[in-house]
């Protein structure tokens, strides 16, 4: 079970990194969502070996570690808030620069830097 859970964590993480490295901002945002998901899974995977039953709870049966559950909850909520902010930023960037591609944004940034340097040189 350890192996399977960590394989899933690694896979989600790898997919996330792969998407973050892409050239388009929407997919970059998706990548961060995947990375968040992988970390939540890792936190909760700590409780897999001694977990309770999914549906029926009776007195004296094992329960899934509540500390890990609350940590995972916190992580999910924060991840959501940050992803929402990121998506809105993507939207804003598109409005401001008229592009969703990071290379275009970089070109614009370099142009601005060079213009500023020229202004300074004068």
């Amino acid at each position: 079970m350890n192996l399977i859970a960590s394989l899933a964590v690694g896979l989600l993480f790898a997919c996330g990194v792969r998407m973050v490295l892409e050239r388009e901002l929407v997919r970059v945002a998706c990548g961060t969502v995947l990375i968040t998901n992988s970390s939540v899974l890792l936190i909760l995977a700590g409780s897999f070996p001694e977990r309770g039953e999914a549906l029926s709870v009776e007195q004296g049966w094992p329960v899934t570690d509540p500390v890990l559950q609350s940590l995972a909850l916190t992580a999910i909520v924060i991840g959501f808030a940050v992803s929402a902010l990121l998506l809105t930023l993507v939207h804003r960037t598109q409005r401001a620069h008229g592009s969703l591609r990071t290379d275009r944004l970089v070109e614009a940034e370099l142009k601005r830097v060079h213009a500023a340097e020229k202004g300074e040189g004068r």
Partner: protein
Amino acid sequence: MPILLPILLALACAPLAYVAGRWRTGAAAWMGALGSLAALGALAWEWTLGPGRLVLPWAPSWGLSLEFTRDGLSGLYSAMALGVGALVVLYSRAYMPHHLHEEGRPARDEVRFQGLILAFMAAMVLLVTVDDLLLLFVALDLTTIISYLLIGFDREDPESRAAALLSLVLTGATSVVFFAGAMTLGLHYGTFSLPLVIERAAHDPASTGALVCLAVGALGKSAQVPFHFWLPRAMAAPTPVSSYLHSAAMVAAGVFLLQRLYPLFAPATGVRDGLLAIGFVSMGMGSLMALVADPFKRVLAYSTIAQYGYALVLVALGSEGAPLYVAIHAPCKAALFLTAGAVTQVTGKKKLSEVGGLRHSLPVLAGASAVAAAGLSALPLTAGFFKDEVFFHALAQRGPAFMAAGLVGAGLTLAYTLRLWWGLFGGPRRDVPAAPRLLVAPVAVLAGTILLGGVLPGLLVAPARAAAAAMRGEPSTLELAYHLDARAENLLAVGAWVLGALLFATRRAWTPALSRVLEGTSRFGPERGYRLLLHLLDRLSTWLHEKEVRDLRDRVASVMVPTGLLGLAVLGVTPLRDRFKVGTVGWADVTLVMALAFASAAALATLRAKGHLRLVLLISCVGFSLAMVFAFAAAPDVALTSVLVETTFTLLFAGLLALLPPDRLQHAQEEAQKPRGRDRLAAGVAGASAFLLSWSALSHLQADRVGARTVELAKAAHSPNVVAAVLTDFRGLDTVGEMTVVVAALLGVTSLLRLKGRR
């Protein structure tokens, strides 16, 4: 506790002066001077109590404590820093308004300047009083930082800024080397407390590497070859700074360090021989440059390099006179610097070739600076005589070659001091307006001190002996008196005077040739190396920046890949036997495995998703599958929240897609379908590292869990839902933080969406 009194008073000076300056600009200097005199008084009172130590626990579990000492060395240097500091602050009261007016800056900046000078004084007093390797480094860096601010005080002037940066880089870099040495010693001896280190080093001498590191830090501070070139450049600072930092305080710190750490250096003859050679080279180089330099502050700067060369020679020889030498040099050099500043203010000139004949208009200044010059060149009836006496005494014990070198050095000193004084005050009469009294009075006070020490040398004996004893760790038998006989010291002194007078008399014959030679050699000096290094570093950083900015993906990858490699490296150095456990998969786990497989498949599919809507659906598919995993793992709260969050998120995402123009999305989509090979590699490295690290972590879970105890405790919290109890009670502060993040993000989202227009 009395040990801390002078430090606390010195620390209070800068804020007090600042407050006084807010009330009335002119009051800051008087307040500061009063404070430093009070600190000096406290020091004198404490002197009567005898030596002492104070140890305050800092982080006892790490064996760290704040240690202070009051011995001869710290007393002598504190008195020097406080006394000269008070005079320099008063002097700046008269000097700065004129200077600020010339720079076109508001008059209230004077308060800032005096505050910095006083802060520097406090840092210096701290440096000489601490008795701990780490605190030594901290105080050393404090002086470096404040000196940067002081040298670059004329911030509009590029030359001044460059000089400040040079001194920061050079003294900062060398003090990092010092830190390396201090760490090596501290780790080797298991303590940073200086007396303990010295005690343990008595049986087990310190390693040469550590000593060399310590020495490099000291040499950088004291502007010795090959780190000397920052000092002449630092003359761009206002004159009070040069007078204080570059005579009595900052450059003295380096030699002070060597004296404080002398017991460590005593057995290492190799290192001491190296220091000896550096001292002689600095002496010769500084003296020769001082003979030809034209701006008079530069003459004094080169002279400082040479004089600290003398002090370095004395330390390297282990002479008892080393602390005394520095203490006598300080007032002489400070007085000459202050004279230079006064002359510049009165005449507006900065070069020897442009002034002269001022002795008629500025008689008091000429007289006082003549005393200071006589002190610097060790003429009798001034305290300076004794600094050369101890110097010659130390050399005479080593043999004729050393004596000859000392004789030439002292002769050169007399020659350049005569040249400086004569250049300022001698020659055909020139009339200038009188200097303000406050500009002249500090010079006169310093000159009075120098004369007093020369007439009554008995006064110098006690502090000099105490300092020598603190340096060498054994009682000192230093004697200071005039002897009218033909002993080696006297013969050498007379020889030096004759040589100096001859050199001065014949100066027209050799000055042009010497300046040409020195100009030629200075082209290949370490300063050139420094410039080249700076230029190359600048180029490298520009290149890296361009490289990094060129593509955002490389920037992300440059974080992800090293992190992944670091994770793998951690696994590489840990023992791998029994590190990874596959774990068991029972029938009960099948549902879990299926949900995990579903999530993984959806994640993989996102990579190939065409069209953004499909991408959104696949992402939410990953989220929902994970919610399923959480549900099967019997974490209903997590699962419910997850479902809720995923639903909201999917709706939000879909709404965003509606806001984005479809043709842009189309374009972006087409571009994104061309992945690069190195992106795959980066993702592979990061994923593999995450996989192995989490596998290793999951294989070694603690047997007894906090969770079990939490379940018990939840009953006391009157909450049947343990997770709710943890969230709202046991980890309530976490939840508050979480809420803050959510609210901040929400505010960000709404304000970003509300913005109209392109920007």
